[in-house]
């Protein structure tokens, strides 16, 4: 009797234990949804694709390493969506993804107008956005702290460019005093110019040429003719890759020896290297991320990541892919800290994270935390120079992996 009773209890306990374990397993298996919303069609599709590639690489790595540990090893599930190339499409896509999936966070956009348009929806759903777009307009009180910029502000780009120039003048005695500013007439270009304007005076530069140009030009020779005529010794340029290529080619054709310092965008993208071949060497640009910065190269794991990217996608890991990769790790860190998939809690965690280990350290200078306005507190844009067909970081000296090749 008792033996039977005992047996029954044992069976019951075993069953209960099994159930608990099974449930635990089930809970551990419940994935955390993170959406990647990027422009995947239209003229900015390639920006979006690179970002998605980087983010996917990060998510794979996180999942293989056992997922989010504080959530019992929950795996990250990525939902990739096309924000299209106009604000209406961005809003529609964002609303759809928010309605269809229980999201913990969104990593996305890359292009400023798309991000600005999608923000109200994110705020309404209390889902945080980790973005690699650079517009300052994002940081508004009404965004309620739901946006986190993992990369730099466009303004920081501009400031870094001028700081670099001062460095050239003192370190290399290049004696550059006359600057030209050429920027695409869009939010990225405008913001960059603002940054340059801010600091040119402090650097004792005379701006002899300052002009916006409409994007998607068919011919850069008029721009180049004007730049040459202005007598500028250094050109700060903000353009996308197609325009950048035309501008550089036309400058070369005109036998111009002006020092070009690009502001991210087209001047540091893989295609420009492919297009110009050997001639790309020596070209300077400011980047919010570069795969050849000290914080990456001194970390064996991150070096392996950049190599893997190159193997998978046939080019060195570009700026947007790096920030996409970092964004995903930032989200993972926040999930880890929040120990919850609740997006509001993830947001609060994002505001508090201060990461100096793991994949997120791929961002310069190797540490990520967000200030009260959602900007990356530590971010330091780097100046890169194409050497041997790839961009090397040459400034600031703390992150540099190569010396400047004097043009």
């Amino acid at each position, binding site marked *: 009797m008792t033996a039977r009773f005992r047996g029954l209890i044992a069976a019951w306990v075993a069953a209960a234990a099994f159930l608990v374990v099974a449930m635990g397993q089930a809970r551990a298996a419940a994935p955390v949804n993170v959406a990647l919303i990027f422009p*995947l*069609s*239209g*003229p900015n*599709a*390639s920006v979006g*694709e690179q970002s998605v590639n980087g983010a996917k690489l990060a998510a794979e790595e996180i999942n293989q390493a056992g997922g989010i540990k504080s959530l019992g090893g929950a795996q990250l599930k990525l939902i990739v969506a096309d924000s299209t190339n106009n604000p209406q499409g961005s809003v529609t896509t964002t609303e759809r993804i928010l309605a269809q999936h229980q999201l913990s966070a969104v990593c996305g956009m890359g292009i400023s107008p798309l991000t600005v348009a999608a923000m109200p929806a994110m705020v309404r759903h209390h889902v945080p956005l980790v973005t690699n777009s650079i517009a300052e307009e994002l940081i508004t009180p009404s965004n309620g702290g739901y946006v986190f910029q993992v990369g730099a502000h466009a303004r920081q780009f501009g400031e870094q460019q001028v700081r670099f120039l001062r460095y050239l003048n003192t370190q290399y005695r290049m004696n550059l005093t006359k600057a030209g500013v050429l920027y695409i*007439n869009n939010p990225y270009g405008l913001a960059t110019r603002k940054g340059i304007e801010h600091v040119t005076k402090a650097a004792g530069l005379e701006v002899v040429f300052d*002009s*916006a*140009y*409409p994007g*998607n*030009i*068919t*011919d850069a*020779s*008029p*721009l180049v*003719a*004007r730049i040459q*005529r202005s007598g500028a010794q250094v050109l700060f340029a903000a353009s996308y*890759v*197609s325009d950048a*290529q*035309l501008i*550089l*080619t*036309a400058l*070369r*054709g*005109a*036998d111009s020896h002006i020092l070009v310092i690009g502001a991210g965008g087209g001047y540091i*993208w893989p*295609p420009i290297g*492919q*297009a*110009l*071949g050997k*001639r790309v060497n020596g070209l300077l640009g400011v980047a919010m991320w570069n795969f050849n910065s000290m914080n990456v190269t001194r970390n064996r794991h991150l070096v392996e990541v950049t190599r893997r990217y190159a193997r998978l996608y046939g080019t060195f890991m570009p700026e947007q892919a790096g920030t996409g990769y970092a964004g995903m790790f930032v989200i993972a860190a926040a999930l880890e800290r929040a120990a919850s998939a609740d997006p509001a809690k993830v947001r609060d965690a994002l505001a508090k994270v201060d990461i100096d280990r793991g994949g997120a350290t791929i961002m310069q200078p190797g540490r990520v935390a967000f200030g009260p306005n959602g900007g990356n507190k530590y971010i330091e844009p780097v100046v890169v120079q194409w050497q041997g067909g790839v961009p090397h970081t040459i400034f600031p000296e703390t992150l540099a992996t190569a010396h400047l090749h004097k043009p």
Partner: protein
Amino acid sequence: MVFLLQSLINGLLIGGVYALVAMGLNLMFGVMKLVNFAHGEFLMAGMYAAVLLAGLGVPAGFWGLYWVALPGAFLMGGLGCAVYLLLLRRAAAFGEAAQILLTVGLSLGMQGAAQVLAGSDFRLVPNPINGAALRLGGVTVQIGPLVAFAVALAVTAAMAWLLGRSWFGRAARAVAEDIALAQALGVDARRVFLMTAALAAGLAGLAGALIIPYHYTFPNVGQSFVIVAFLAIVIAGLGNVLGAVLGGLLLGMVQSVTASYLDLDLSTAAIYVLFLAVLLLRPQGLFTRRARTV
């Protein structure tokens, strides 16, 4: 003075490309009465065709990349035939509105298809022409645009012969003016349409092959060129194929001179303003003598 000369030459050279694109556009409008909003995508497809052919191999030497020009143009001519036979043949009977809708849809679809087939990457085959230039006095002439310009002139001469002297040309002009009358004279209008579509697409293909040495190829590239081509054909006079060449050259120069002397950002606005002025003051176009009834 040198600066003015330089900006005029810059405009002239880019105008050559506009001219090639505009010629095909205007040929299609003149003969088929079709405003082809997908013409920029013909150019885009032509660029991809050229890049694809270049992938088969490029002979060494400075001019090696240009071998793709003729095969590329013929490939695109084939595409033009296909588009005509599949879509435009039936669309000839549609109203203007439905034709616009059709070509706009085609334009979107082709951009999407290009991205699906070729990816969104910016492609440029490394080549010695990119960035090479002649320097004459203080003036710089880039080789790539110069070749495109020279070919545009040669093509213009060939088109002048084709339209003015050949049986096809006479037939095409007859169809353009009065299709029923042309058919009564024995002209097979559908064949003329087919050849027109092939020729227009072929010209776009040729233009594509001529600009790949120095311009990126990507799915939306056609849009930047085709708008100017549209303005050029109206400025020249719709249907006036040889006028379109002058229109393209003129717009190239206006764009260049305004960009050189005024604000860069206003160079686009300037050509639109010129366009509106021509439209309102001389709607038949600058280079068309007789007012056309459209």
